[in-house]
């Protein structure tokens, strides 16, 4: 893997210009095209931008200017974020040839900070999936073991970082879509507090849960990108107006880490098939924290056992509505037989047949749970449960500073292994979903590997706007396991 510092140091030392680094990485992307991490590579655009970065560097007298902290840094963007002038496909046939008319706020903030965007990365179609296999353009592969999935839905972003194709990438996380692939690929992934990064330009899956965030090789890099992309955006009504001031430098000594009994229960049904090796690595990481002076506090989150059901009601309901705009009328692709449509209904059916199976499944579920007669029993009840889960966290954070858990019950599984059982696939999100429901920040960091050499991830969940604390704690563990 490569880091921001390495790349900028090389340019500062005159060892490798930004343009040369950019060329090398693009070459590497092509060499590793089998990974299918990228859906589009904008070589020409990236090259010009890297040359521009070199000029800026020499103009600034060989220093990185303060207002361009990411100068020359190659980045990759999940292909559900709009980047003006390039295609944004969401890994769907529906948007195969859709060209972005504007840039997402997070993307333009990266550009404004001097970054060089190399291209757009693969994902599960419309960010719906946990393995990366639900891409209309073929799955991305896990660079650690190409017979395995990289995890999803930010599959390409995680794979690109893990394969050293970019130091950092943007992803989006609705129920674990940054943290899960970060864990499977052995990189760092941060899902920020809801509202901390603008959603403007992120193609919505479930608006009340979606959040844009960084994936990177190191805590330092993830933190640096996060500082660039976060902040109030008048184009997103749910974005936070003022981010609360950072706490003073935190030390691991004295930090109270909550360990929810529900996530580590011996009852296998409660922990939903937590692999012993995953559990072991996570517990070792917690012991390490203890040895550094942190205090482990057993806590309970009594309602999180309903989190998966609650999530799959709210997320699909919002998705069914969010995806209604894809009708082939104003943009996007039309179905091949749309010319034969006799009625308006035929027209819609034909165009919307371009959605993949998993997307269709979720639209159907969402339409059902919102429909008259079922709305109260499903959607309304799920919203009530969501409040209970939020309250669980509030109680917990009155006792602890952060909460630790595995990111996923398993390490990366084989391609095709879970394809036949959507429920099994949904249960992979067991540990990651609660943070989305409660709008809390959470980070996934590598804490060693299983006997096959596959990475294991530790998740730290913080209270709202505690990103700095999460990163500091992550840093304390970095490289020590």
């Amino acid at each position, binding site marked *: 893997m490569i880091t921001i510092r390495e790349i900028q140091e090389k340019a500062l030392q005159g060892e490798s210009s930004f343009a040369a680094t950019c060329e090398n990485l693009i070459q590497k992307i092509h060499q590793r095209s089998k990974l299918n991490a990228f859906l589009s590579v904008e070589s020409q655009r990236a090259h010009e931008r890297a040359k521009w970065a070199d000029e800026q560097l020499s103009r600034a007298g060989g220093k990185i200017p303060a207002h361009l902290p990411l100068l020359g840094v190659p980045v990759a963007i999940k292909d559900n*974020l*709009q980047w003006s002038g390039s295609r*944004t496909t*969401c890994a769907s046939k529906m*948007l195969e040839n*859709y060209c972005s*008319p*504007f840039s*997402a706020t997070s993307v333009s903030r990266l550009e404004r900070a001097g970054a060089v965007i190399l291209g757009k990365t693969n994902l599960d179609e419309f960010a719906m999936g946990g393995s990366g296999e639900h891409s209309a353009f073929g799955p991305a592969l896990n660079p650690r073991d190409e017979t395995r999935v990289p995890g999803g839905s930010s599959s390409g972003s995680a794979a690109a970082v893990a394969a050293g194709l970019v130091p950092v990438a943007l992803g989006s996380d609705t129920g674990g879509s940054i943290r899960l692939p970060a864990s499977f690929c052995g990189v760092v992934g941060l899902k920020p507090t809801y509202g901390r990064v603008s*959603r*403007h*330009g*992120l*193609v*919505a899956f*479930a*608006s*009340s849960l979606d959040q844009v965030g960084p994936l990177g090789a190191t805590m330092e890099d993830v933190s640096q990108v996060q500082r660039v992309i976060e902040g109030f955006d*008048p*184009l*997103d*009504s*749910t974005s936070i107006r003022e981010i609360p001031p950072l706490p003073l430098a935190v030390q691991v000594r004295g930090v109270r880490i909550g360990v929810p009994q529900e996530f580590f229960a011996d009852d296998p049904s409660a922990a939903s098939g937590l692999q012993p090796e995953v559990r072991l690595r996570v517990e070792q990481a917690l012991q390490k924290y203890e040895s550094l002076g942190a205090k482990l506090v057993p806590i309970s989150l009594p309602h999180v056992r309903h989190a998966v059901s609650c999530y799959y009601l709210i997320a699909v*309901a*919002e998705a*069914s*509505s969010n*995806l*209604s*705009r*894809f*009708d082939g*009328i*104003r*943009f996007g692709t039309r179905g091949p037989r749309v010319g034969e449509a006799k009625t*308006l209904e035929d027209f*819609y059916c034909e165009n919307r047949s371009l959605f993949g199976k998993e997307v269709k499944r979720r639209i159907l579920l969402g*339409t059902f749970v*919102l*429909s*008259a007669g079922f*709305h109260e029993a499903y*959607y309304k009840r799920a919203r009530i449960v969501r409040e209970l889960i939020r309250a669980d966290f509030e109680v917990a954070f009155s006792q602890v500073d952060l909460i630790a858990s595995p990111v996923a019950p398993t390490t990366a599984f084989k391609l095709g292994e879970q394809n036949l059982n959507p429920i099994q696939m949904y249960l992979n999100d067991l540990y990651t979903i609660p943070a989305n429901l409660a709008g809390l920040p959470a980070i996934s960091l590598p804490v060693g590997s299983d006997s096959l050499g596959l990475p294991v991830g530790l998740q730290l969940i913080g209270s709202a706007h505690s990103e700095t604390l999460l990163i500091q704690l992550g840093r304390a563990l970095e490289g020590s396991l």
Partner: protein
Amino acid sequence: MTPPKFEAVIGLEVHCQLSTQTKIFCACPASPPSGQSVSEIEPNTLVCPVCVGHPGTLPVLNERVVEYAVRAGLALGCGIRNDSVVARKNYFYPDLPRGYQLSQHDEPICENGSLEIQVKESPKKVRIKRIHLEEDAGKSSHEFGVTLVNLNRAGVPLIEIVTEPDLRAPEEAGDYLRELHAALVALGITNGNLQEGNFRCDANISIRPSGSERLGTRVEIKNVNSFRYVEKALHFEIARQIAVIESGRSVIQETRLYDSQRDQTFSMRTKEEAEDYRYFPDPDLLPISLDEAWIGQVQRSIPELPAQKRIRWESELSLSSADARRVASDPESTRLFEEAIAGSGESPAARRTIAPVVAHLIVGEVARLKESEDGEFRLAPSHLQELAAELAKGQLSSTAAKKILGLACRTGEAVGSLIDQAGLRQESGSDALLPIVDAVLAENATAVAELRSGKEKVLGFLLGQMMKRSGGRGNPEVLRELIKKRIQGI
């Protein structure tokens, strides 16, 4: 007359376009540049990625829309919700860009108000159930075997004003709509242009045996954009429903459209085909939170409404109820009238003399001139005030007043100098008028004889001849007196 066998029960939903600069959720203009009509604008030019519904775009609520809705709510006596919710109304149609319309569902911004109308000279309160915010959809047109979609209108802000089923006759519905229209225009929240579709009405109507308390099956008549057509559509629908019931069948719940050319309604869709809109709160927008201080501020900005003005004008200024209604229903007429009266001095007696004359000029001659003049309309309130004063003093005939008004509209010159220039100052002196009287009487011996024998009718004829000879300047009252004196041989 036997009482009618059936009674109609009518409730109305009005969609009123708000006159904000920009659309409800983006920065596109809400209406064409001034002077241009919606139909003249190139399709799909008043649009941006937000109102076209591009993926990744998010709505940002226009605060002015909230203010206008609250203004309407307060003026109609509604309670204002401190926290209201924008909801998604999900349905598929080619001119609905996102596949859902942003509207309000179970937590609308205003609730429980009323509007008073006059039914047979006595006041009637029409209860208003709710007012909510929503965005307009685009416009589809079907021609040459294809459907064309124009999204210029998509995202234009609307309020929907829903009554309780309190109306009992098509004319009551018409009166309510006229009164509501006048009030919303006076509040300055809509241009109220009916041709441009600024004010569209859906009517819910059912009938029931007179005296019954139970509601019949209702039919919804969609999207009628003239007050007269609403009345006609309701008349047709009442007759149709009565015929259905009297023939032993029952009315089915459905949505119907009104065809104004054939003057009838026809079925659009039945209840079975009705959509399930799957409403839920829009997660892209925060709840609309309003504090009491802000609501109070909006309350204080609300002007006197047409209905209140009318009542005041009738009692304080002796206006006829017809004139008062017409002046009050149009903001420009109201402005002309109020400024003319304000310029006529403080004395209530003077105002009472001037006001009815000014009002009458506004609803009569001024309205006619506005229709027919194409140049710049230079009429100022001072013109009306001066003209009314001249009329009241008997210095000007009504024919001459019309002439002066026309000149004033075109030239903008002061009334006094126009009268002098045109030589139209009314002649009331006997010395100047007597020669005319004598000449006309001498030329019309037969008529004079008839008048002497008591046929008062010919008086008008003789008067007309004298007015003609005086060039319209003779004061008819004085002339009448002079004729009488001559005939009686005084």
